[in-house]
């Protein structure tokens, strides 16, 4: 059964590109969200295997959404996908409980590997 992915990003362009890459690799994109608030609601509704989470978003940002999701569901698997690919923020994301981080721009293969690594971290 295909792993189910929730894509969270305020950019419809990035959501489309992530969706194309992951569906092409056999993942099931079960939902999309445009901001952290929607991400929290859709996570609880859809119960995805992995969430790809942007950081800079309106209303509720990705770091806050990650914290809120993990506070209710500590086993949630969140991969941060951000243009802010800096070491200190990566450390912050991992301390918050994200399972990985990948910086934009990336190649499709890099994204797929990052998602697979997050899934493998469940084992």
């Amino acid at each position: 059964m295909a792993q189910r992915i929730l894509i969270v990003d305020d950019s419809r362009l990035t959501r489309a590109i992530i969706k194309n890459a992951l569906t092409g690799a056999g993942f099931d994109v079960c939902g999309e969200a445009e901001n952290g608030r929607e991400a929290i609601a859709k996570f609880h509704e859809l119960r995805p295997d992995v969430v790809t989470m942007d950081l800079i978003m309106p209303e509720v940002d990705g770091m806050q959404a990650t914290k809120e999701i993990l506070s209710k569901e500590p086993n949630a698997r969140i991969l941060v996908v951000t243009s802010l690919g800096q070491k200190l923020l990566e450390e912050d994301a991992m301390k918050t409980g994200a399972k990985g981080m990948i910086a934009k721009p990336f190649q499709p293969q890099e994204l797929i590997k990052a998602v697979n690594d997050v899934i493998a971290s469940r084992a």
Partner: protein
Amino acid sequence: MQPIKLDDDQIADLVEVGNIGAGNAASRLSDLIHRRCIIDIPEISYMSTQEVRRILDMENSFVVMMHIKIMGDIPATMFVVLKRAYAQTIVRYMTNEGLDPTGKDLDFTAQFALKQLGEILTKSFFDSIHQFLMAKAKYSMPEIIMDSWSSAQESLFSSFAGASGEHLLIHSTFLDPEKSFNGKFIYALNQDSQGVVLNRIKLLLGTRKPGGVTP
């Protein structure tokens, strides 16, 4: 030439292009100074005197402005603008030296450091955008201006002489979350370049190229 009319999706897509550039430049700065550097969500404006004044809001300040021209598939102009006090702070982080107690001029070392920084930040900004859009670019050496805001504005506007209203500005604030500095990235595209960027975005939305770079 009539300005390109952008719909909401196109505006959002250009914002994402700006986000990728600004986020990468901010991250390069972060790694250089070992402090977090984040950005606000970029905004889109059309070039005008009023709009630049609104975006930058640097009245009565002394500023440092770095200016670079990009040639290649997507010709563009970029400015990095910050108040001189914030430039001094960043130099201090870069060099691990104490602040000039007079708080006045940036000395030769500081000016050199800022020129290097300007080159690093603008290159990081453009490299990430050009990777994303699968485009080629060549860079000029950045020009650095350290002056009152009114003088710096003259230099900025002279870059767009005769083209006001046709340039699109994608601008974003970069900042230390602990509020020790902030500044602005401004990415300016003429109409031809706007068209190239929008066409590249259509390609990204419509195709998957094996080995191609996506966001």
